[in-house]
């Protein structure tokens, strides 16, 4: 047993660090640290910087503009970028659609879409969920009916993250009502400039706008935009769920969140001592750190198995449950640490330049706590993940 990175992996880590030191704009890390939302331009700027080094989609094969990174390299890259406070890569194009096209797309689709994801021409969002189809995704109803060389799409998607920035949406649509519900679903690429699409924002509990409702009425989509075969959408969606989840534990986010929490808590005085010296607070902080140390290794165990060629299966469900619980625990303790400064409603919607109340580090604690309740809901809720563990690992 050896818990160290190999010399090659260490060299790669140093290379990533050096790149970040040189190229990560301070303006963006400052924004992240203050918890201010990134604009579309901010995301595009960071994507372009990474892309200039060939690292925006490092896990893609080299012939498509990636580096062919294995799971350990991806992990190193993710850990280093989050530790440095870099914006996260917007996942929809790079992490989701890209791998789907690489596996199931036609040559024409690959040639057309992949470069446009990398150079930022297209901004994708994910249209799976519907009002009636959340955990039970296979019950989705948004319908695509064949009409000549087009599909005509009618229905509604919801919870579409960053749909307000997107110009393209990849959708699961119903193309057949025969057989099992899973067998009548197709994976369709839709240009959001097509007539008949309407996007409406949903404001979240913390005041932020990051999700949307998307309506389709008689939207005509070329048949050439179908990925894979008709009624093969469920297989594609499942492939994504099991193969593209190396960062699902969010170890990097948890580590960065814990470090920020410690910094903030040290500065809060509690009955004449720093809050970190309150034994009850210190105990909770320590418990989180102990859990995180173990989870980081659980994550690495899965990552290195994946690098050795084993597809991460239901293990990713374990990582999702544990990882989201830990991050939410960190968010909760940060809200606690903020003390009375948790009370002011400091929404990104209200945020002007100088009107933040309370010490830096406390200001976004409540908003982040509430916003991150989503972590255990989306991407397959933690209840659904536990069902998967019970069925697929425990065979119950």
């Amino acid at each position, binding site marked *: 047993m050896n818990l160290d990175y190999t010399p090659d992996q260490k060299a790669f880590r140093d290379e990533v660090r050096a790149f970040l030191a040189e190229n990560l704009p301070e303006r963006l890390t400052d924004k992240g640290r203050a918890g201010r939302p990134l604009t579309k331009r901010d995301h595009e700027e960071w994507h372009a910087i990474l892309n200039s080094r060939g690292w925006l989609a490092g896990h893609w094969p080299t012939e498509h503009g990636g580096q062919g990174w294995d799971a350990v390299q991806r992990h190193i890259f993710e850990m280093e970028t989050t530790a440095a406070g870099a914006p996260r890569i917007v996942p929809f194009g790079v992490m989701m659609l890209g791998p789907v096209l690489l596996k199931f797309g036609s040559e024409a689709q690959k040639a057309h879409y992949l470069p446009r994801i990398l150079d930022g021409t297209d901004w994708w969002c994910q249209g799976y*969920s519907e009002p*009636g189809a*959340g*955990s*039970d995704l296979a*019950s989705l109803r948004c319908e695509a009916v064949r009409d000549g060389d087009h599909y005509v799409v009618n229905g509604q998607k*919801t*919870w579409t993250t960053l749909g307000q920035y997107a110009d393209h949406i990849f959708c699961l649509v119903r193309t057949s009502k025969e057989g099992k519900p899973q067998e009548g679903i197709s994976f369709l690429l839709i240009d959001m400039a097509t007539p008949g699409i309407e996007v409406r924002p*949903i*404001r*979240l*509990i913390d*005041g932020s706008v990051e*999700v949307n409702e998307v309506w389709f009425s008689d939207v005509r989509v070329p048949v050439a935009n179908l990925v894979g075969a008709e009624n093969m959408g469920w297989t594609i969606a499942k492939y994504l769920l099991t193969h593209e989840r190396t960062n699902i534990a969010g170890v990097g986010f948890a580590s960065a969140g814990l470090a920020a929490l410690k910094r903030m808590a040290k500065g*809060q*005085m*509690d*009955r*004449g001592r720093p*809050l970190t010296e*309150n034994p*009850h*607070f210190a105990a909770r902080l320590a418990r989180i750190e102990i859990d995180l140390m173990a989870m980081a290794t659980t994550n690495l165990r899965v990552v290195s198995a994946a690098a050795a060629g084993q597809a991460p299966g239901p293990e990713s469900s374990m990582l999702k449950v544990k990882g989201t619980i830990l991050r*939410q625990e960190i968010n*909760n303790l940060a*809200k*606690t640490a*903020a*003390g*009375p*400064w*948790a*009370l*002011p*409603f400091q929404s990104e919607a*209200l945020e002007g330049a100088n*009107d933040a*109340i309370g010490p830096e580090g406390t200001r976004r604690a*409540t908003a982040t*706590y*509430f*916003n991150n*309740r*989503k972590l*255990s*809901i*989306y991407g397959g*809720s*933690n*209840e659904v993940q*536990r069902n998967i563990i019970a069925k697929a690992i425990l065979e119950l």
Partner: protein
Amino acid sequence: MDFSLTDEQRMLQDGLRRLLTSGGTWDAVAEMGVIGMLLPEEKGGYGGAGSDLMVVFEEIGRAGSDLPLIDTGVLGAGLLAAAGQDVDDVLAGGARIALAHAEPGSRYDLAHVETRAEENVDGWRLTGRKSVVVDAPNATRLLVTARPEDHAPIALFEVDPKALDLRGYPLTGGGEAAEIALDATPATLLWADADAMLADTHARATLAISAEALGLMESIRALTVDYLRTRKQFGRPIGKFQVLQHRMADLLIEIEQARSAVVNLAGHIDTPDRDRHVAATKNLVGEVARLVVEDSIQMHGGIGVTEEYDLGRLAKRLSMVDHRFGDTLHHLERFIELSA
């Protein structure tokens, strides 16, 4: 032993519930005599028992109301009455009172007052900063604490809110507060040695906010049970999934614990053992509040994190209870100290 309410309390409960569900205003609530129910007769009111506070604030919580009844009714009127002031006008709803006590570094420590009071020929002047002063932007009267010198007792003053440098902002889950900068601000001395009356009113405010939390929990519980019954996934109501049933059952058990904790405090608010009960109740209510907030959102799925759906505001209000008058950690430590 008798856990039932008096006839008057039941009438108050019914009346207030009806009033608040039809969007009861400050004036209407005052007109019902609710503020007077928060003070005992010897202080000018006509209630003031722990159970009176429990009844009133449970309804405030149930309705998710952000009327500043704790600030004007419990803290404001309570302190004025304790300082021998006439409170008739306050009980009639004629004033909104904010208490400017906490400071940027005080966290939940009631004794932490650095604001300085200086007396010169034309009276008292206060200098310092007051923080997260709830309802200050709407207050017609402002009570301020300060010390004449370092280790002197805390003194209670009144300041004209119109003469102030005040920075208002909204609170999470409703209501408003302000940061206040005092710079040789003229003030009237109400009481020179106010430590005991501050402890007393804060104990009562802790009971009030704990009862409010209980009301919020009850509303959230009703909303969540209703959602479990109506939301369908996989062809059945999600309330048929045993894991959600158990979770909801646990919430019920814990909410009953919170109710008992509030009853305990209501029953001990005027006894020598008061402070230990304050600590116990606020600690327990804070823990349960967290559970109720997080589990109710989780069981709702995506809709639980939206602003539009009722749960969001109720959950935010409930979550903020842990950030006033001491949080679970603060009261855990207090409980250990007081139990030693």
